[in-house]
C-alpha cells in the first residue's frame, strides 16, 4: 500500500485521538464516565436478567432458556455432540479439504477465527469469579454446560452456512440475521414477518453485545490485570483507565478503521501461541500439584451437589457454573455463526460438526484448566470481590510460577484485543444489516465501538460486567427462538449428510484417502 493511501486511512483515526485528548486530560474522568453510564447499564441488566427464585436463589430466566435449549438440542439431535466428535476432528484436520479448493477458507481457519473471538477474558477472569462465588462445584456444572452447548453451536453454525449471502464479488455474509429471516421464510410464508422481527432484534442485541462483552468487558479486565501487575493501587496506571482505553482504541482503530490488517495478522499468529502457553502453564501447575488433584476432583464433585456454605446452595453453584460457561463459549448466542459462515463448503452441516469443538476447547478445556489451577492452588476465596476476577487467576498462577503474572498480562491483553477485533466485526455485520452498507454507517459504528473501548476501561467492573452479560445473553432470545423453528431443517441436512458419511460416499483427500 502506498504511503499516501496509508496516510489517508490512518489520519482520521489519529485525528480523532488527538482531538479527544484535551477532553480526557482531566482527573477523575474514570468516575465521571462510570457515573454517567451506570444507571443505564443497571437498568438494562436488570431487565435482561429478570429472574425467579428457586430455593432462595435468583435464577435468571435467560439462563434457563439457554440451558434448556442446549439440552433439548442435544436430545433432538441424539447426542450429535458425541457422535460427530471424531468426524469433526477429521474435518478440522483437513481430511475432506478438496485440493481444487485450496486457497479458500478451510474448516480449521473458520474454527480458529471463531475461537479467537470466544477465547477471551471469560476463560480467565470469569472462571475465577464463578469458582469463588460458587465454589469448586461450579466447575462441574460449567463443564456440563459446555458439553450441552456444543449442540447449540452445532445447530446455529449449520444454519449460518446454509443461509449465508454469497455476493457476486465473492464476499460472504452470514449469521443469525440471515438464517432467522431467510430460514423462517423458507419454513413457511406465515413465519416471514416473524423471522424478520427476530433478525432485527438479534441485530440490535448483537450491536449491544459488541459494545458490552466483546468490548467493554475485555478492555476493563485487561486494564485491571495491567494495574495489578504494575503495583495494584500504588500503580501509576491505577486511575488512568481512560489512557489505557485510548491506547487500545487507537490500536483497534488502526485495524478496523485504518484497515491496517498487519496488526490483526500479528495478533492472529500470537494469540494461539499465548493460548498454548496459557494451557501449558496451567497443565504444569496442575502437574506440580498432582497430589492435590484427587482432592480437587472430590471437592468439585461434592461441591456440585452439596454446596456447603455457598450462597444459594446447589442451585447457586449451578447458576454460577452455567453462567460462566454460557458467557465464555457463547453457545446459543449466535455470534459464532457469523464467523463460521465464511467457510468454503457445500455441505453446511460439516461446519456444524467443526463448531462442536468451539465450546469444547473453550469451556471443557481452557476454562476447566483455569478452574483446576485455582482449585489446586487453593486460591479460590468465597469472600472475594467479583471485580477481582482476573487478579484471582493471576494470583493462582503466581503462587507456583512467580513470574507468570507478566506473561498472563501479555496474554490477557492479546486475548482481549483479538476478541475486540472479532466482536467489532460481528457488531459491524449486525449494524450494516440494520442500517445498510455505506461508508457513513461503517464509520459511525466503528467510532462508537472505539468510544466504548475507552468507556469500558474507565468504568468499575460491577456495572461493566452486568451490562456486558446482559447484552450478550439478550442475543440468545431471538437466536434460540428462531433455531427451535429451524430444527427440522438442520435435522434434514444432518440426516442426509450422515447417510452419505456412513455409506462412504464422501470423498476423502490427502492422507485420509490413503488410509481408506
Amino acid at each position, binding site marked *: 500500500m502506498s504511503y499516501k493511501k496509508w496516510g489517508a486511512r490512518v489520519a482520521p483515526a489519529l485525528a480523532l485521538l488527538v482531538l479527544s485528548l484535551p477532553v480526557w486530560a482531566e482527573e477523575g474522568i474514570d468516575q465521571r464516565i462510570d457515573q454517567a453510564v451506570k444507571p443505564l447499564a443497571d437498568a438494562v441488566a436488570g431487565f435482561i436478567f429478570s429472574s425467579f427464585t428457586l430455593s432462595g436463589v435468583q435464577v435468571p430466566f435467560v439462563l434457563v432458556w439457554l440451558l434448556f435449549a442446549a439440552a433439548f438440542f442435544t436430545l433432538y439431535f441424539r447426542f450429535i455432540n458425541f457422535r460427530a466428535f471424531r468426524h469433526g476432528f477429521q474435518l478440522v484436520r483437513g481430511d475432506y479439504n478438496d485440493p481444487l479448493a485450496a486457497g479458500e477458507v*478451510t474448516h480449521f*481457519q*473458520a474454527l*480458529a477465527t471463531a475461537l479467537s473471538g470466544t477465547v477471551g477474558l471469560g476463560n480467565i477472569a470469569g472462571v475465577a469469579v464463578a469458582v469463588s462465588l460458587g465454589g469448586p462445584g461450579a466447575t462441574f456444572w460449567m463443564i456440563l454446560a459446555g458439553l450441552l452447548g456444543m449442540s447449540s453451536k452445532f445447530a446455529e453454525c449449520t444454519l449460518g452456512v446454509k443461509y449465508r449471502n454469497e455476493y457476486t464479488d*465473492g*464476499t460472504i455474509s452470514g449469521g443469525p440475521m440471515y438464517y432467522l429471516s431467510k430460514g423462517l421464510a423458507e419454513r413457511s410464508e406465515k413465519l416471514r414477518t416473524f423471522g424478520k422481527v427476530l433478525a432485527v432484534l438479534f441485530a440490535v442485541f448483537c450491536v449491544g453485545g459488541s459494545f458490552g462483552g466483546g468490548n467493554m468487558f475485555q478492555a476493563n479486565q485487561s486494564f485491571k490485570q495491567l494495574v495489578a501487575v504494575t503495583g495494584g493501587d500504588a500503580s501509576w496506571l491505577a486511575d488512568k483507565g481512560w489512557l489505557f482505553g485510548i491506547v487500545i482504541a487507537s490500536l483497534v482503530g488502526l*485495524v478496523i478503521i485504518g484497515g491496517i490488517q498487519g496488526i490483526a495478522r500479528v495478533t492472529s499468529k500470537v494469540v494461539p501461541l499465548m493460548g498454548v502457553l496459557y494451557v501449558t502453564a496451567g497443565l504444569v501447575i496442575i502437574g506440580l500439584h498432582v497430589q492435590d488433584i484427587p482432592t480437587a476432583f472430590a471437592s468439585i464433585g461434592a461441591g456440585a451437589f452439596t454446596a456447603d456454605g455457598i450462597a444459594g446452595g446447589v442451585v447457586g453453584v449451578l447458576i454460577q457454573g452455567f453462567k460462566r460457561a454460557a458467557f465464555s463459549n457463547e453457545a446459543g448466542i449466535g455470534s459464532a455463526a457469523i464467523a463460521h459462515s465464511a467457510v468454503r463448503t457445500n455441505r453446511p452441516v460439516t461446519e456444524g460438526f467443526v463448531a462442536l469443538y468451539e465450546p469444547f476447547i473453550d469451556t471443557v478445556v481452557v476454562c476447566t484448566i483455569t478452574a483446576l489451577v485455582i482449585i489446586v492452588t487453593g486460591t479460590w476465596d468465597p469472600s472475594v470481590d467479583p471485580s477481582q476476577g482476573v487478579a484471582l487467576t493471576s494470583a493462582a498462577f503466581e503462587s507456583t510460577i512467580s513470574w507468570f503474572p507478566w506473561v498472563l498480562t501479555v496474554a490477557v491483553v492479546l486475548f482481549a484485543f483479538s476478541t475486540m477485533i472479532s466482536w467489532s466485526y460481528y457488531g459491524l455485520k449486525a449494524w450494516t444489516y440494520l442500517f445498510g452498507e455505506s461508508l457513513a454507517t461503517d464509520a459511525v459504528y466503528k467510532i462508537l465501538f472505539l468510544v466504548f473501548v475507552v468507556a469500558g476501561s474507565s468504568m468499575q467492573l460491577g456495572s461493566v460486567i452486568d451490562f456486558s452479560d446482559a447484552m450478550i445473553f439478550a442475543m440468545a432470545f431471538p437466536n434460540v427462538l428462531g433455531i427451535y423453528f429451524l430444527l427440522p431443517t438442520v435435522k434434514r441436512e444432518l440426516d442426509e449428510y450422515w447417510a452419505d458419511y456412513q455409506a462412504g460416499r464422501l470423498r476423502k483427500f490427502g492422507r485420509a484417502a490413503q488410509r481408506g
Partner: protein
Amino acid sequence: MSEVLLVGIDCSECSERALDYAADWVGATGQGLIVAHVIQWSPFSFQTPQENEERHKRREAELERAHVEIVDPVVNRLRERGMNVQGVIRHGHPAETLCAVAAEFGATHIVVGKTGSSRIRAQLFGSVAHSLVQISKQPVTVVP
C-alpha cells in the same frame, strides 16, 4: 514413452534460470513441460473474520494476477518456440504442492531454482528447493 518435466517458478531471477534450463532440456528432447507457480497458502493459518469474508475474492484476484503476470507470459513465450507447454497455478505449501502437481501430471523430473525471492529468508527458514529435495518422489534438479 513421452516424459513430462515440471519446472516450478516464482518471480525471482533464479527461477528464470531454472526455466531456461528446463526449456533447453525440453527443447532438445521434445518432452512435455509443465510450468507451475504455487501461491504460498496454508489451510492452518489464523485469520480475522474480515479476511475470511473476503477470502474468495482475494483468491480469485491472486489466481488472476499469477496468470497474467507470471505464468501466461512464460507459457506463451515457450509455445512460440514450438514447445508443448502447460501452465499450472495452485495455492498451498510450495514444495508439497509441486510434488502433488508432479504426481497429477505424471512428471518424471522436477526443476526449481535454488533460492526464491528472498535469500535471507531462504537461509533462515529453508527454501522450496531444500524441502522439495527432501520430500519429492521424483528426481529434482536445483538450478543455482
